[in-house]
């Protein structure tokens, strides 16, 4: 079987066989990189601000008057592929009639797919820009309403982005 021409061994030129000029070329390249700009981010001091398209941990939006948007329909819990969300509904005197008495997201299960945000009819559950999720115990990873509520103002960039998309 004949070898196709493109698979033939590359013939070195005389200067390449001498090897030293090629070595010097390589050394020059690394020297340039030595002096080039560094890419490292000094993490705890320099933090990254994610763009609005980023899906951080899911949170529950709270209006300016202090009422959360969620009506406890349970759609997010239903759609969640990782079964991370648990909602228990209760009645309220307000116009929306229902509110989540208990709302918990297990951050050990959450896969940040954003389905809950997509399915929510009230724009109540939203992917925030928070990404620093480190726990020392499993209990700590269960985020109740105390950790989930976040004001609409803080979520505005994400909401604007979502509105531009759908």
């Amino acid at each position, binding site marked *: 079987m004949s070898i196709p021409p493109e698979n033939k061994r590359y013939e070195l030129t005389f200067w390449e066989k001498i090897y*030293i000029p090629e*070595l010097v070329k*390589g*050394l020059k*390249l*690394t*020297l340039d*990189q*030595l*002096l*080039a*700009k*560094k*890419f*490292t981010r*000094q993490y705890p001091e320099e933090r990254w601000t994610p763009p609005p398209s980023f899906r951080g941990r899911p949170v529950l939006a709270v209006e300016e008057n202090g009422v959360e948007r969620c009506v406890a329909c349970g759609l997010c819990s239903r759609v969640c592929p990782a079964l991370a969300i648990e909602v228990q509904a209760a009645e309220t005197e307000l116009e929306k009639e229902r509110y989540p008495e208990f709302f918990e997201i297990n951050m050990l299960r959450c896969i940040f797919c954003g389905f809950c945000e997509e399915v929510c009819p009230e724009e109540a559950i939203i992917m925030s820009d928070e990404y620093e999720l480190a726990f020392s115990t499993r209990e700590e990873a269960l985020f109740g309403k105390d950790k989930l509520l976040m004001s609409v103002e803080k979520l505005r960039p994400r909401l604007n982005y979502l509105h531009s998309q759908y």
Partner: protein
Amino acid sequence: MIGTEILIALIKTVLVFLVVLTTVAYLVLAERRISAAIQNRIGPNRVGPFGLLQPIVDVVKLLLKEDIVPTAATKPIHALAPIISITVALSTFAVIPFGRSVELFGRRIDLVIAGDVNIGVLYLLALTSIGVYGITLSGWSSNNKYSLLGGLRSTAQMISYELSMGLSVLAVILIAGTLELPKIVEYQAGLNWFIFLQPVGFITFLVASFAETNRAPFDLPEAEPELVGGYHTEYSSFKFALFFLAEYAAMITASAVITTLYLGGWQVPYLEALGLSQGWETLIQVGAFALKVVFLLFFFIWVRWSVPRFRYDQLMNLGWKVMFPLAVVNLLVTALVVLAV
């Protein structure tokens, strides 16, 4: 009188050891920082200012680790091998001259531990050859096939490259007409450096030094992708630290030897023209020696992060078919020129 002589030698030895060991510690840091910079990273900079305390922390961590010896290992040799490596790497410094002799308290002091050794170069070559035992024995006594392969590779490599190394040194000896390192340095006064008189010899010696110190691109004895860790796979804690130390000390030794033989040692061209006092002159010369060594150390690191590792057959090809004939021809031409002049 003999007492003071011993005392002076002792003080010199301790000083040199201190300097070399601190340099080793910071060489590791320098290697990490420079490799990081070449890869567009920053490297360890957290422990102390600019990461300057990193070596201390590393050493403490290494020493606090468990010392594991494989059950099937040949224990006495397993323990002996790192000692051979480190002894060889450090004792080479005995004949390296750091500067011109000085008058101190009315007595002449050579700035070299063993100045009157009239076989300095021979001692150097002999010791660096013994270094291979440390690696081979460690590979064999570990009773691990990867370690053994690393050790074997090291043996073959050192023997192949020692030849061209010795031949390039011979050319230097032919011109200088002496085996004493201080006299070889004296010969290189002004810009009479052997790098200019012996450019081919310099290149063969440099390449052979890389092979002798097992540094990339000749770090086959510890080629991680093929041999796990190579000869020191089965070593941990203090014994591993010794191997680590020996590797970097060997690098410093090689740099010092190259400086002495080819870069004029402590010679600074046209320094006499400035008309400084003797004290200042000596200080500048010792500083120049240190600077040359540091530059070579940087070069060692720089090459490691630029050139990929050779394949085993390429290594042997280069050693026997290129380096060896080159060194022989260089020696012959030098001999003819020396005869004719």
